[in-house]
């Protein structure tokens, strides 16, 4: 009898464990892609004629590895549906907060994803040079990139003259978020030049408020918003040519021109009177996460927050984002001098492939095509845009996204890619971030910060 009860106990435990494992395996199945009907009218009535060039990929699978996490990843996964419907392939999406570290590990251990979205061309460079595992772009991708993007974009996806990765989505970073309603009430006007912006800041201080709020905390990536400040100011202070020399290391990082820029950024970010509205003093910039950095505007504790177009996703649901008396909108960060036009700083992701199966190549070509851009625009919440010139901007939901799309597609815009993303990974995703954090949190002297970053350049 004891023998039977013992076996019964063991059997019960085994069944329980087995059942829970099965449930876990079946339940968490949204990474199996394509088996939900999704949120699209797009699912049923998509026009498959544009997809015939990819052939019949029934039963095949493509894995995608990115740094885009929930909730932004839902729109990506939904945007693949027309492709999955028309070709029969399945896309398996995997987002990871550890992308920058893990992609190198995965490639080196022989387990690369089929496709990876690189948020920094500098990281792409490092992976190409150190591992040589990235495949050259196919003719289809080259054709798409040359047709649908302005010419500098192809350069950003190339390493040492060979083109590897087409751009995917983009963002515009030269925005200052503010509250039109608050401005109206206080009688402030949107500044058109840098000097006007400083005057406005002084005015706000005189009226008893703190004009600027900022947050640079971001876990492992703490410090990146401060690098965006430097890049925007570099474009405006010394112009796009010096900017290019800066990120290609033709001028050293501790060059006097760079020191000028750091000082000008310091007149705002390290000015006790200007920062940190609603969040504390200068050092609180380092302890506040970038997501929380602009929120004091909603509580009238702060007036301006310099941040990219993707910051839209951080405003609570239901916030009225509109230019005319709305709660929140963004104005273009004004130029310092007239010599350099209206420079715009932006970023993007790049699509690199590691395997050459036909379905992977087809998917890569799809991602660089207008079909993907418009499919994504249809399902995206506010906060997404692409530099693909064939993008139908009317599909975008938010006025900020439409403004961004306009700016990106405008041939008059002097567009420059985010410099820290173009620098080698050790600097752009390493010492540049940590030294700027040091500069703010520990009040490290300007020259020492620049010297330290220069010393770390490989």
């Amino acid at each position, binding site marked *: 009898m004891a023998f039977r009860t013992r076996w019964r106990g063991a059997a019960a435990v085994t069944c329980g464990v087995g059942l829970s494992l099965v449930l876990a395996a079946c339940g968490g199945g949204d990474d199996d892609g394509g088996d939900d009907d999704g949120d699209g009218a797009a699912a049923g009535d998509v026009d498959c004629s544009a997809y015939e060039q990819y052939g019949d990929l029934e039963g095949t699978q493509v894995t995608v590895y990115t740094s885009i996490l929930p909730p932004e990843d839902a729109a990506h996964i939904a945007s693949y549906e027309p492709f999955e419907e028309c070709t029969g392939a399945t896309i398996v999406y995997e987002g990871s907060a550890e992308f920058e570290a893990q992609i190198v590990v995965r490639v080196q251990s022989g387990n690369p994803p089929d496709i990876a979205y690189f948020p920094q061309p500098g990281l792409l460079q490092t992976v190409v040079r150190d591992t040589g595992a990235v495949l050259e772009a196919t003719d289809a991708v080259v054709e798409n990139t040359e047709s649908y993007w302005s010419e500098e974009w192809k350069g950003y996806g190339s390493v040492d003259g060979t083109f590897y990765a087409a751009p995917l989505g983009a963002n515009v970073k030269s925005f200052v978020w503010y509250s039109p309603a608050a401005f109206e009430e206080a009688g402030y006007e949107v500044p058109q030049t840098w000097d006007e912006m400083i005057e406005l800041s002084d005015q706000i201080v005189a009226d008893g408020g703190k004009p600027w709020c900022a947050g640079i905390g971001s876990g*492992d990536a703490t410090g990146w918003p401060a690098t965006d400040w430097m890049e925007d100011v570099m474009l405006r202070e010394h112009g796009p040519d010096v900017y290019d020399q800066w990120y290609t290391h033709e001028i050293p990082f501790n060059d006097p021109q760079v020191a000028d820029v750091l000082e000008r950024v310091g007149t705002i970010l390290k000015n006790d009177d200007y920062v940190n509205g609603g969040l504390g003093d200068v050092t609180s910039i380092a302890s506040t996460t970038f997501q929380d950095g602009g929120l004091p505007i909603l509580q009238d504790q702060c007036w301006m927050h310099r941040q990219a177009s993707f910051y839209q996703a951080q405003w609570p649901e239901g916030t009225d984002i509109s230019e005319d008396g709305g709660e929140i909108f963004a104005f273009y960060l004004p130029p310092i001098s007239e010599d350099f036009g209206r420079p715009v700083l932006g970023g993007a992701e790049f699509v690199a492939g590691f395997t050459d199966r036909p379905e992977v190549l087809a998917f890569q070509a799809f991602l660089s095509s207008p079909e993907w851009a418009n499919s994504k625009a249809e399902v995206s919440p506010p906060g997404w845009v692409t530099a693909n010139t064939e993008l139908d901007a009317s599909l975008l939901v938010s006025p900020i996204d439409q403004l961004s799309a306009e700016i990106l597609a405008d041939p008059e815009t002097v567009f420059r890619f985010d410099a820290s993303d173009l620098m080698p990974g050790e600097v752009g995703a390493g010492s540049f971030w940590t030294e700027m954090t040091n500069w703010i949190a520990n009040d490290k002297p300007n020259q020492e910060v620049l010297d330290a970053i220069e010393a770390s350049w490989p």
Partner: protein
Amino acid sequence: MSDNDPDRPDVGSGSTATALREDVPVAAPRPKEGSPVWTGVLVALGAVTVIGILVVVASLAGLWTPEFDWPSWLVSSVTAVEKFGLMFFAIILFVVVMSLILLAVDRARGVRNWMVALAFLAPMGLMLVFGLIYPGLRTMRESFFDRTSTNYVGFDNYATLFTEDIFQTVLRNTAIWVFIVPIVATLIGLVYAVLVDRTRFEALAKGLIFLPMAISMVGASIIWKFVYEYRPDQEGVEQIGLANQLLVWAGREPYQFLITSPLNTFFLIVVMIWIQSGFAMTVLSAAIKAIPDDIVEAARIDGVSGLGMFRYVTVPSIRPALVVVLTTISITTLKVFDIVRTMTGGNFNTSVVANEFYTQSFRQFNVGLGAALAVVLFVLVIPIVVYNVRQLRLSEDVR
């Protein structure tokens, strides 16, 4: 001998009686009769192992790389079902192979004792070699090469470690951690154990202090990150961190616990002490309870009490346990990574060696420097482990 002989031993009618009686031969032990089939299995397993080792060594040395068409579920499983399937396959494979080994060793012919020992130890030994010794040796080798392990640079990486400011800060922080955490945690654990010993609320009190050990270090770090959270003392802004709220209620300014160096290291150390005190208390409490009562009574009779009892009787008696606790907590502290990474990311001059070698290897892609840091950590741990093992041997000799 007849049944009535008084010299016959009185042993009843058990089987021993049979053995003791002279006319019944004692059964000889059953000879190990092994079966040739199992011997064959044993030889086959040995051959497969040897070939496997040769293949792996050859491919590592770059001499020959086997190229097979592995099925995709085996090599790159993607979906959850595939991954679970692979896990079960691996477990079953392991069970089958181990069973074969053990059965074969038991039933084969001509098996010696050393073979049995080898059969039990070999799988573990192999895994240790591949998982511990080979990576360890390789890391040591990489520490003498440059960023991508292509050029030999000798002791350059170590020179950088000891001369550059950032790394001197890292080493200084690690030293602070290693000195403070074991001593303070052990002290707290010891005092607590002595105080709650044989009181009414002993079980509850012990549970309370042991609770932090039940959560992961990352969980503890997140809790304390919220405790230290900073908000300015302004109109319309509420404090959300416990520490700053207490400061504000006491009429002082809120303080940036995590950003202001050098004190921020000490606030991180508090978290580690909070976690490790429970461990110290548990081990020391058991040791205190093991102190023989007669020693304590003798001391009482001699007029010792309270602090004197603690100093002259308790602490010397539990010395081995104290050493174990101190060394274990030291080793754990040298490895601390989660707390620093979760709370400050290594910024604000709080980085320690374990955090820094991750940063260097995986974010700066400087494998040589990361390896050098890892070797330094290893060298720092060795004396503690050696001391621990010696103490263990000594205490075993005493017993």
